[in-house]
């Protein structure tokens, strides 16, 4: 790793080379394909959904999966596949919004704490110890209980807990990077602390954070749909995978597809993010050597 590694002229070549190596990996290609499709479905579900997700059809109530309705229909005759496709919008939004603020806050806090150390670091360490003493879900639903159920409050609750994990990761990376010569060189040249942290240390410390972010988006979907299922996340008229699964809960014996089919989308998207995360982890580790 060289200190001058991120000068602007060399960047396009390195990016191309990196992408070349990435797309040579099957796990990256599959993960990328799944996530790209998921984003597409989230952006324009109306193009892909075969039926109106809200249209009742009393002539086709609880039909098992068939060619006309690959995922079957629900207790109002609504096409389950179309509802699952429309739910991509909410669930992909969850993957992004439940993680992005935690990432921003966590990385900033972790970078400062890791760079300055001292009392702030000690206080931070204690807070982390206390927060990880709560099971993640328990703390999140306790906060949701206070704020009230709903998507926005769910994002707030998850962010309040989740930033700690990003901060811990960034702090450790910054501590290692800070000991390098290039950081000392920056100080000798009289650069401000902020410039050293954000322009010099962070670009070198960010890759584990990005890898974790990928896995965390998978976790956010699992967590968000669990909260939806429990009735604390997205609220019923909205199509969200956890909500769809919970709507089918009472019909497991007569119409299992109502609950089990939406889960396919959760598994597939989760798999996409983890494959992408694993592939990136391997690629970045290989680069570091």
């Amino acid at each position, binding site marked *: 790793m060289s200190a001058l590694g991120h000068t602007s002229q060399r960047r396009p070549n390195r990016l191309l080379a990196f992408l070349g190596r990435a797309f040579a990996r099957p796990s990256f290609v599959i993960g990328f394909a799944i996530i790209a499709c998921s984003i597409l479905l989230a952006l324009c579900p109306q193009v892909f959904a075969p039926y109106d997700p809200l249209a009742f059809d009393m002539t086709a109530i609880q039909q098992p999966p068939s060619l006309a309705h690959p995922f079957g229909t629900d207790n109002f005759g609504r096409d389950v596949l179309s509802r699952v496709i429309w739910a991509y919008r909410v669930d992909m939004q969850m993957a992004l919004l439940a993680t992005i603020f935690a990432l921003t806050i966590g990385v900033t806090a972790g970078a400062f704490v890791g760079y300055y150390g001292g009392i702030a670091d000690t206080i931070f360490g*204690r*807070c982390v*110890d*206390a*927060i*990880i*003493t*709560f*099971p*993640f*879900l*328990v*703390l999140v*639903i*306790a*906060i*949701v*209980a*206070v*704020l009230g159920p709903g998507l926005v409050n769910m994002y707030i609750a998850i962010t309040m807990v989740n930033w700690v994990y990003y901060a811990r990761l960034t702090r450790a990376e910054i501590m290692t990077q800070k000991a390098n010569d290039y950081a000392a060189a920056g100080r000798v040249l009289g650069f401000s602390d902020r410039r050293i942290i954000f322009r010099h240390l962070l670009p070198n410390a960010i890759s584990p954070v990005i890898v974790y972010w990928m896995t965390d988006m*998978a976790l956010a979907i*699992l967590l968000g*749909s*669990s909260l939806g*299922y*429990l*009735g*604390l996340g997205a609220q019923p008229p909205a199509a969200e995978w*956890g909500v769809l*699964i919970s709507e089918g*809960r009472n019909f*497991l*014996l007569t119409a*299992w597809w109502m*609950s*089990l089919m939406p*889960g396919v989308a*959760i*598994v*597939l*998207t*989760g*798999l996409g993010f*983890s*494959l992408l995360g694993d592939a990136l982890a391997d690629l970045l580790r290989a680069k570091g050597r």
Partner: protein
Amino acid sequence: MPSLSYLVARLLQIIPTFLLVMVFIFLLVRMLPGDPAIAMAEAKATDAQVVQIRRNLGLDQPLPVQFMVFVKNTLSGDLGRSIMMKAPVSEVILSRLPTTIFLSLYAVALAVLLAGPLAFLAAMRANTTTDVVIRGVFQVGLSMPVFYIGLVLLTVLAAQLRWFPVGGYGTTFLGNLHHLMLPALSVALYTSAIIVRNLRASLIEVLDADYVQFARAKGLTPRIVMTRHVLRNALVSTVTLLGLSIGNLMSGTLVTETVFAIPGVGRLMLEAIFARDYPLIQGLTLTFAVMVSVVFLLTDVVQSLLDPRLRKS
């Protein structure tokens, strides 16, 4: 045996952490928009009743005083009264706790039984079809939320094949094992996915380590190399992993209890949330935190028993 000073130092570490845990839980209910007394009062409560609730909760005192009272009460086992159950919070929680602890231990046992041998198989045959299949299956398991695993098991094994009851709790030990099989398995499948992934990696590393090669080279039988050198190390990493995933396990138990209608503390937490029973929510959050820190502590102790190097620091 780990030295006494190590244990004492480890125990003392818990104190500042727990003080902060108490601060969080204390502030949680104070975060309520508006007046908690009004939120806790019934809709038809008179002003006098609200004042009474406020006084009962000590909400007319300044915050630091309230906190000291909260800590004092909690340490003496007084967690307030549950609004929903009309009984002391500590009693309500204690009556539900054994079920959850039983379910969690059951899930851990299943997870280890499932993940241990398979991780071994995958590591011994690294990069063969066996390995790829095992990893693939558990990778899918890792992408399934616990409630969904539960519903799939419920549909296939309970509703269709009728091997297991749909929910509830048994009366005898064997009856419990039978009743709680599916909920425990739902949590275990997710937990074992985490174990397989990490245990396989650490086994491959150990199998390749110098001291294992040396043990083989000096002519020890593969059996002895396995039990004395490889397994012992694998045990350390499994214990660590189980300890670290206790939070996951507890979260999973909460969900699984809801799916299978099991009367444990997890389901109680959800009931408390929908009933807006804040003293109970507070008490339950504390209970979960206590359980996690006890497990963290046990993990550290077991780890230091298994790996003498860890005792020094």
